[in-house]
């Protein structure tokens, strides 16, 4: 006949075998969650770094998304290039280590009404009224079961530099 002690030891090992996968799943899930939160913060900072560049260099701004841009005459450093990438580079410089940045689009926004209509980033821009918008699409670094359909977007809109004046 077996002693009760042997029985107990066996059940402890069995219990650990049952519980440990659950515990590990929770533990790994928490780590994955933290990494995604960290990546989100990184993108949030990156998108504003891009917008900050945009508000002081607005006539160079709206070309990265591939749309035709009227402002390149004022953008000598890129000399009418359709690929003005300074804003995109600024975003990626900050948001590159945790998050996978899959796209950066930049546009100017009419600040005189609330519909957020697109405006060309050229001399028609009124500093202090119109906004610049930088939008980033990205995916979290953890391609795990915890985050299905991982593409996320993050955007920042900032007042284009200059003394603001009220519209109307």
């Amino acid at each position: 006949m077996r002693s009760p002690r042997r029985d107990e030891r066996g059940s402890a090992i069995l219990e650990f075998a049952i519980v440990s996968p659950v515990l590990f799943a929770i533990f790994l899930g928490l780590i994955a969650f933290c990494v995604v939160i960290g990546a989100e913060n990184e993108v949030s900072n990156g998108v504003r770094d891009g917008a900050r560049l945009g508000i002081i260099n607005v006539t160079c701004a709206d070309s990265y998304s591939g749309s035709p841009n009227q402002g390149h005459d004022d953008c000598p450093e890129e000399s009418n290039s359709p690929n003005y990438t300074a804003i995109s580079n600024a975003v990626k410089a900050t948001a590159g280590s945790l998050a996978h940045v899959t796209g950066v689009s930049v546009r100017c926004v009419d600040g005189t009404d609330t519909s957020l209509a697109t405006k060309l980033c050229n001399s028609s821009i009124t500093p202090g009224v119109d906004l610049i918008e930088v939008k980033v699409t990205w995916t979290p670094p953890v391609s795990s079961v915890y985050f299905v359909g991982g593409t996320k977007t993050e955007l920042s809109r900032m007042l284009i530099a200059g003394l603001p004046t009220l519209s109307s």
Partner: protein
Amino acid sequence: MAGEQGAALIEFAILAPVLLLLVFVTIDVGRVFRVQEQLKNAAWEAANYAQYYPWAQGSNGHCQAPNTMDWHAQQEGGHTDFVVTANPSASALATCPTANPEAANGAFAPFASGNNITVTVSAPNFKLLTTLAMNILPWLAPKASVTVKIQ
């Protein structure tokens, strides 16, 4: 043997809520940090506007979007449910002028050039997973303030 099994079950029943609470609190802390960051960004953008137009507050009732710091705060990250308050408040003003009166006196005295204005942004729609915690401890509700000098 049968008695021991029951003891383990009871032990688990006692520990499970505690473990789950720990997990949810950990997740909530991360979420609060995230919203805090968004609120801070929104507050900076509102304050940037407020240093030139400190009275352009939604609570004024006369200043309408997009000519309010509220709107600029909300559009920064596209969070239209963010709520903006400012100190000094413009709620008592009867007008929304397009420029600060030269002699900032009367109701406009608090908005004189050189004064400070503090813009506070909160997210009333943000709910914790451990919702009860916010009911017991209201100061857990995330908010962010930025103070700038009126130009």
